[in-house]
């Protein structure tokens, strides 16, 4: 009897807990928003893209258990959960973008395009067109994120294969190379023709430089400009313990969000952005002492975020579903940090930056939180403890926002109800 009672209590508890856990898929959202899991167990979905009919494509960082690396998800009965799932492709990579009736994807070396038919099915899964090939991939910062303007141009990030362009990467005391030779072929955004095949470096142009590694980028059609979020450098304290304490390293440098004009230089590796001084500071590898200001020719961020949180995707919201304040503002996913150790890790959320008339119009705020899944203020000491790590973003035709999680393979759907 006692045992039965205990058992029924246990069942009740777990039921209550389940209902609570399912509430908004465990996410904390502003008033009026709700979330559900649109798809799960996908492997490692990085960037995502949605067609005008609401078909969602996800690029997997690594091939899944079946060896496939691009997933097509469709919610055919309109219940908010994907019920038709097909997959193809076998190459790693991050980038994916729908432009007209083409689906563009990126490996860590190339950009491909696939043809979509009237039902947004891929016509040529086994024979994509090679748009760009031979982009630098030296393991570190190898992902190639892509976005497009409305003028048939494709923008691709080529990350620097280095932390701070030292003669010997991540070697204490090794000086920065002057000038940094990595910037000739990486550490920036390159612009290519979206309609041409078989392009490589010679066909493209370096659109912006001095960007260590950009994973999140988006073209804003209302301002007609490119916006990028950079992953700042690591390890100021471990390489320069006399200049930086553990606590300072945990807050330095800022993760930066830039508005980009053609030819801009954001200053990596020569400077980093100090969020408390609101200044560009000369990197210690280039003679900096933690205080010396860098050259004014380098551009300033339009928003600076806390250090090491790893911005993964940028999306300018153009839908009509969310309240007015979100219109034309930027959502940015944060993967969550690792380089704050020994201090607790931070991030693991989706931020929102309000824009008005094409300019940042207020402080950034956390839009969706709780991805890490910790309760009662338990701190994440290692990013692998996070239950989910926000990565890609896409806007559905009805104005819903989709967020991918490349740690556990979920896609969350966030909607607003008046």
């Amino acid at each position, binding site marked *: 009897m006692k045992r039965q009672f205990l058992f029924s209590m246990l069942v009740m508890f777990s039921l209550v807990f389940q209902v609570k856990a399912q509430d908004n898929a465990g996410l904390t959202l502003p008033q009026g928003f709700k979330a559900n899991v649109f798809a799960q167990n996908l492997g490692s979905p990085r960037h995502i893209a949605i067609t005008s009919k609401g078909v969602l494509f996800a690029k997997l960082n690594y091939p899944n258990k079946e060896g496939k690396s691009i997933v097509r998800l469709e919610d055919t009965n309109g219940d908010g959960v994907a019920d038709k799932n097909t997959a193809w492709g076998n190459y790693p990579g991050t980038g994916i973008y729908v432009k007209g009736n083409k689906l563009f994807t990126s490996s860590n070396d190339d950009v491909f395009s696939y043809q979509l038919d009237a039902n947004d099915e891929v016509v040529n899964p086994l024979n994509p067109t090679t748009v760009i090939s031979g982009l630098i991939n030296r393991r570190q910062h190898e992902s190639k994120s892509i976005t497009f303007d409305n003028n048939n141009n494709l923008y691709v990030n080529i990350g620097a294969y280095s932390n701070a362009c030292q003669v010997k990467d*991540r070697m204490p005391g090794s000086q920065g190379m002057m000038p940094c030779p990595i910037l000739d072929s990486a550490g920036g955004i390159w612009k290519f023709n979206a309609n041409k095949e078989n392009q490589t470096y010679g066909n493209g142009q370096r659109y912006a430089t001095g960007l260590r590694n950009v994973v999140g980028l988006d073209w804003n059609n209302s301002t007609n400009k490119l916006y990028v979020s950079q992953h700042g450098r690591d390890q100021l304290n471990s390489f320069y313990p006399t200049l930086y304490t553990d606590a300072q390293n945990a807050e330095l440098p800022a993760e930066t969000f830039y508005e980009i004009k053609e030819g801009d230089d954001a200053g990596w590796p020569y400077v980093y952005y100090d969020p408390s001084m609101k200044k560009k500071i000369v990197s210690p590898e280039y003679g900096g002492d933690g205080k010396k200001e860098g050259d004014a020719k380098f551009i300033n961020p339009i928003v600076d975020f806390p250090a090491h949180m790893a911005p993964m995707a940028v999306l300018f919201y153009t839908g009509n579903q969310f309240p007015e304040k979100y219109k034309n503002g930027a959502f940015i996913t944060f993967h969550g940090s690792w380089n704050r150790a*020994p201090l607790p890790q931070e991030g693991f959320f989706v931020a929102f930056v309000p824009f008005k008339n094409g300019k940042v119009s207020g402080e950034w705020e956390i839009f969706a939180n709780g991805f890490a899944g910790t309760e009662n203020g338990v701190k994440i*000491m290692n990013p692998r403890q996070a239950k989910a790590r926000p990565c890609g973003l896409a806007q559905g035709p009805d104005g819903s926002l989709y967020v991918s999680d490349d740690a556990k393979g979920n896609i969350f759907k966030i909607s607003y109800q008046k």
Partner: protein
Amino acid sequence: MGRKAFMFLVLGLIGISSKTVAQNLVNGKKIYETRCLVCHQADGGGVPNMNAPLDGSTNVVGNDISRMVKIIKKGYNERVALDGSYYSNAMTPNPDLTDAAIADVLSYIRNSWSNKASMVTIAQVKKQVVKK
């Protein structure tokens, strides 16, 4: 009994008393916290896809001490699968660490978190480097 096994036995009997074992682990922990922790993390779990885990790693607890010594001294910048996953960051070399310090930090990571493996002696570090 092979020569190697005999060496181990001798070292085990005369080289490492329990008092010095504790001292070696304390030393190793200190080195770990200043040089390794920022990337490999406080729980030895590394960072998914970026920095390799040490906790539960077959390489770390395995018998190929020379490989570990070489990675600590020279750093690492190759793409290889470790227990089924890939890690992309370059590992910082530590050319200034003494053989004793390497033995201590290796002993520490081989006996921390869920790891349980033999202590590494200075003789092993020396020998393996010559053999390399």
